[in-house]
C-alpha cells in the first residue's frame, strides 16, 4: 500500500487522521497516486492540483525520501521506497505567509 501524509488542513477536510493508505496500480507516479487519492477523497479535488489544468498548486509541495519531488514530471515513477510503502509520500503546505 502507498502511504500518503496530508497537511493538517487537508486531513481535516478529508476527515482522516494520520496517514492515508492507497492501493495504486503500477506504474506509481505522482499522477496515478493523486488520481487514486482524489478518487477515494473527492473533496480533495482542486486542493492539491488545479481542477482545470491539473497543475500542482503553487504553495503545495511533494516530498519523499528526503527529496523534493515537486518539480518532477507527474508521470515519473516515484521512488521504490514509496512504491513499497517503506516511505510515505508527503503533501506539504509550503511555508508562506502568516
Amino acid at each position, binding site marked *: 500500500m502507498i502511504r500518503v501524509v496530508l497537511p493538517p*488542513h487537508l486531513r481535516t477536510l478529508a476527515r482522516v487522521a494520520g496517514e492515508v493508505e492507497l492501493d495504486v496500480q503500477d506504474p506509481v507516479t505522482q499522477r496515478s497516486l493523486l488520481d487514486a487519492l482524489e478518487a477515494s477523497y*473527492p*473533496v480533495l479535488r482542486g486542493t492539491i492540483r*488545479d481542477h*482545470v489544468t491539473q497543475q500542482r*498548486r503553487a504553495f503545495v509541495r511533494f516530498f519523499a525520501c528526503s527529496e523534493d519531488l515537486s518539480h518532477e514530471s507527474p508521470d515519473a515513477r516515484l521512488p521504490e521506497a514509496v512504491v513499497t510503502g517503506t516511505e510515505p509520500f508527503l503533501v506539504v503546505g509550503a511555508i508562506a*505567509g502568516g
Partner: protein
Amino acid sequence: MSEVRVLVGTRKGAFVMTSDARRQRWDVSGPHFAGWEIYHVKGSPADPNRLYASQSSGWFGQVIQRSSDGGRTWETPGGGVTTSPGGMQAGESNKFAYDTSPETGKPLTTHQWYDGTQRPWEFKRVWHLEPSLDDPDTVYAGVEDAALFRSSDGGQTWQELPGLRGHDSGPSWQPGAGGMCLHTILLDPSHPERIFVAISAAGAFRTDDAGKTWKPINRGLHSQYIPNPTAEVGHCVHRIAMHPSRPNVLFMQKHWDVLRTDDAGESWREVSGNLPTDFGFPIEVHAHEPETIYVVPIKSDSEHYVADGKLRVYRSRTGGSEWEALTKGLPQKDCYVNVLRDSMAVDALDPCGVYFGTTGGQVYGSADAGDSWAPIVRDLPAVLSVEVQTLP
C-alpha cells in the same frame, strides 16, 4: 419567540452567533473551518437551516461548505469519503470552471491586466454566495476573477453564466487593489429574471433575462481615478444594497461617493451629503424603513480605517444626503479598524437590529436600529463578512 442567527466569516474561520429576540446575550460557536479564510456565509431565504459557506486558502484553493442544520454540521457537497473509487460522484463542489472554447480549453474572453496586456480569466476564490429566494438548492456565487456562477444542486456543481463576462466591455475590465472580484449579487424579488451584480473595478451590471445578457448600469457615477470619470465601465463599486419592497431603488457605496438610483440603475445620483468622508465599503438598508440606510465611512482610499480614531456608523433616514453619526457604545478614541464590504447586515425584528464586523475582529450589534451598540464578540480574527438570519 424569534431568534437571530449571525453568520460571521473571518480570516481564520467562521462563527455562528445566536440570540433570542432581545439580542442581549449571545451564544457563539466556532471557529468552523479553523484556519481557512471564510469570505462569506449565507442562509437560504427558502430554508433558513440551509447555509452555504465559501472556504478558501492561498495553499489549497476553494471549498464550498453546506449545512442543513443551521451551521451545527457541515458537508462538502459531493465530496464525501468513498470506499470504492469511481463509485461516487466526483467532489465538484469546489470546481469553478469558466465557460471555455472547445478548441483551446481556455476561457473565451480576456480582461485587462495591470500592465495593460490582455489576460485570460483565472479563478481565484468565491467572494459572495447568494442563495435563491425560493429554492434552497439554487445558489449564485460571485467569484474572482469576476464572473457569476450558479448551482442548482445544492452547491455540488457550478455553471458559469458567461453572458456577463462576455459583455462587450469585458476586455476593458481590470482588477482593483483587492483583485477583480464579483462581490455583490442582488436578486429582485418582484422580477425573478432580474439580477444586479457589482464588480471591482468594472462597476454595476443588470440582467433582465436570468443572466443571458447584461447591461452596465453606471450612468451618473463619477470616478476621478479613471481616465474618463463617467465611463460606461471601470468604476470601483464597493457595495450595493436593496430593500426588498422597492427593488428599483438601490443604494451604492462606491470607492468614493454614496449614490442611489430610483430606476433600477438606469441613472444614479450622489447622496453623500454631510458625511465626513464618503469613502467606505458596506452599505445596508433598514429592514422596515426603505429610506433608512447605513454606511461606515473610513478616512480615505490610502488610509483604510475610520477617521479620527472614532468608529462611527452613519445613518440617513431620508434615503441619503442627510446623515447622523451613531456612536453610542462604539469606541470613540484610538480606533483604527475598517468594516469590509460584506460585513454589515440587518435583522427583520422590530426594532430592526443592525450588525457589523471589523478588521479588528469585533462584531457589534444594535437592537435599536443603530441608536446604541454593544459588542457581541471582541477578539475574532479580521471579519470578512456578516450575515443575519431572523428565525421564527
